[in-house]
C-alpha cells in the first residue's frame, strides 16, 4: 500500500515538474500590470493584451514565418541530400565507407562556436549575410550529419530482397530510391525530418550572429531580444506570451508524432 502510494506520488511529481513551468508561463502570459507581480497560480482577470502586444510591438508574425521557412527549407535540403547518400552508404560496400560515416558523425560533435567566424565569412562572401538562405545554409552543418546517420540506419533495416528484383531489371539507383525505398522509408523520413525541423526551429547562436534586422530574425532570437524600458524592467507578460505562441505548436507536434520521434532518437543513438 505504501509502495503504491509512493509510486503514485512519484508519477504526480514527474508530471508536475514536466508541465508545471509551461503552465506557469501560460498563467503569466494572461496577466498584466500589478497582477503580474503577485505570484499566484491562477490569473485573476485573464486578458489577451500581451498576445496582441507581441505582434504589435515587433514583426513577430514575420519572425514565425521566417522560422517556418528556414526550418522547412533545411528539412527539405537535408532529407534530399541524406536519403541518396544513405542508400549508397547502407547498400554498397566500398573502401573508406566506415571512415566516411565516422567523419560525418564527428561533424555532429562540432561545437557551433568553433565554426562561427569561418561560417560568418562564408555567408558574407556569398552575399547571404542577414538573409534566410544564409541562415539555412549554416543549419545544414547541424542537421545533415544526423539525418545521414539516421537514414543509413533505417535503410539497413530494409530487407535486401526489396531492391534485388529492381536491380535485376536494370533499374538505376535513383529509380530504386524513388520507387522501392521511399514508399517504405517514409516513417523514417518523418521522424528524421521532425528532428531536423526541431533543431532548426530551436537554433539560437547562428541566428543571433548571422541576422541583423528585426525582419530577418527567427523566433528564438526575437524572444531573447524582447526588452523593456530598461534592463531591469523586462516585459515578462509579453515574453511569456511569445514563448507560449512558439512552444504550444511545438509541444503538440511532439505529442502527435511521439512514436516517430522516439524511434528516430533511438535509431540515431542506441543502434548507432
Amino acid at each position, binding site marked *: 500500500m505504501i509502495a503504491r502510494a509512493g509510486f503514485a506520488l*512519484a508519477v504526480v511529481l514527474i508530471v508536475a515538474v514536466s508541465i508545471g513551468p509551461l503552465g506557469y*508561463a501560460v498563467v503569466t502570459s494572461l496577466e498584466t500590470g500589478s497582477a503580474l507581480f503577485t505570484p499566484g497560480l491562477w490569473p485573476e482577470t485573464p486578458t489577451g493584451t500581451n498576445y496582441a502586444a507581441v505582434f504589435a510591438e515587433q514583426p513577430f508574425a514575420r519572425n514565425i514565418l521566417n522560422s517556418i521557412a528556414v526550418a522547412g527549407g533545411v528539412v527539405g535540403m537535408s532529407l534530399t541530400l541524406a536519403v541518396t*547518400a544513405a542508400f549508397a552508404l547502407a547498400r*554498397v560496400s*566500398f573502401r573508406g565507407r566506415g571512415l566516411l560515416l565516422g567523419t560525418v558523425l564527428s561533424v555532429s560533435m562540432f*561545437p557551433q562556436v568553433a565554426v562561427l567566424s569561418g561560417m560568418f565569412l562564408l555567408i558574407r562572401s556569398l552575399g547571404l549575410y542577414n538573409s534566410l538562405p544564409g541562415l539555412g*545554409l549554416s543549419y545544414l552543418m547541424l542537421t545533415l550529419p544526423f539525418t545521414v546517420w539516421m537514414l543509413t540506419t533505417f535503410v539497413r533495416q530494409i530487407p535486401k530482397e526489396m531492391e534485388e528484383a529492381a536491380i535485376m531489371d536494370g533499374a538505376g539507383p535513383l529509380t530504386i530510391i524513388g520507387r522501392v525505398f521511399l514508399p517504405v522509408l517514409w516513417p523514417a523520413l518523418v521522424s528524421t525530418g521532425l528532428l531536423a525541423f526541431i533543431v532548426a526551429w530551436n537554433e539560437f547562436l547562428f541566428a543571433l550572429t548571422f541576422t541583423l534586422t528585426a525582419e530577418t530574425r527567427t523566433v528564438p532570437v526575437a524572444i531573447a531580444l524582447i526588452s523593456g524600458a530598461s534592463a531591469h524592467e523586462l516585459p515578462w507578460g509579453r515574453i511569456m506570451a511569445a514563448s507560449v505562441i512558439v512552444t504550444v505548436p511545438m509541444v503538440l507536434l511532439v*505529442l502527435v508524432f511521439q512514436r516517430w520521434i522516439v524511434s528516430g*532518437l533511438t535509431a540515431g543513438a542506441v543502434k548507432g
Partner: protein
Amino acid sequence: MKRGAATPLARRRVREAWALIAPMVLVLLCVAAWPLGRTIWLGFTDASLAGAGDAAFIGWENYYAVYGGQAFGVLVDPQWWRSVGNTLVFTVTSVSLETVLGVLVALVLHQRFPGRAWVRAAVLVPWAIPTVVSAKMWAWMLNDQFGVVNAALEGMGLIDAPLAWTADPLLSMIAVIGVDVWKTTPFMALLVLAALEMLPRDIYEAARVDGIHPVRVFFRVTLPLIRPALVVAIVFRTLDALRVFDLVYVLTANSPATMTMSVYARRELIDFQSAGSGSAAATLVFLVIALAAALILTAGRLREREAGS
C-alpha cells in the same frame, strides 16, 4: 554482395555510390570543414570580423605572447580558465544528475499503470520547448523579486529573504545546471526506456519468483543490461554539455560566474569584435571537445577489449 569483388557490375555500383554520396560530402565540406579550417586560420591572425580582408599572420600571439615582461593571449586570460572550469563543473554535475534522474523516470514509466501514455507524453514536454524559451521561462520563475520559486520557498519557510538566483555566483551556476537537468532529463529517460523495453520480461518474472529484492534486481540484472544504451546517452550528453551556449547566455548573459567556453569565445568574437583571439578561443573549444571525444572512444575500445579477452 561480395566485398571488393572487382566485376564490372560491382565497380559500377561503387561509382554510382560515390555519385550519390558526393553532393552530401560537398555540402559538408562547404558548411563544416571549410568554416572550421577558416576559424583555425583566423586564430593565427590579427583579423577583425568587420574587415577580415587585411588579416596578417601573427603566429601564436592570440594564444600566448609576451610584451615588455607581460603575458597576453587567451591562454593567460584568467577568465578563459574560469570558463573552462565552469564548463567542466556544469558538464559533470548536470550529466550526472540527468543520468540518475533519467534512469529513475524511465523505471517509473516502464511500469504498467493507468494513464501511462499521458505521463509519457508529459515527460516529453520540457524536451520539446526551445532552449531559449525554457531559459526565459525559468528566468521569470527564478526572478528575485517576483519569481514563483522564491515565493514558494518563502511560503514553506525555507528561506527568510528572496534569493538572487541569476545574479549570485553560486546560485546562478545552480540555476543553470537545474534548468539544463530539467530540459534534458527527458532525452535520457527516453533512451533508457527504449533500452528497458528491449529487455526480456521473463528475467523479472524469475527474479520475482525467487523473491529477490527489486533494488538488487536493478543493480544486478537491469543496470548491466541497459549499460550500453546508457553509455551512448551519457557520451552524447557530455559532448553536448561541453559546448553549451544558449541556456547560459539567455539565463545569465556574459556573467563571469557561469560563463562557459562557448560563451567566452562568442564574447571575444562578437562583443569585442576580435576575430583573431575569438577564433583562437573557438579553436580551443573545438580541441577540448575533440579531446573529450577521443578519450571516450579510447576508453570504450579498451573496455571492449577487456570484456572480449
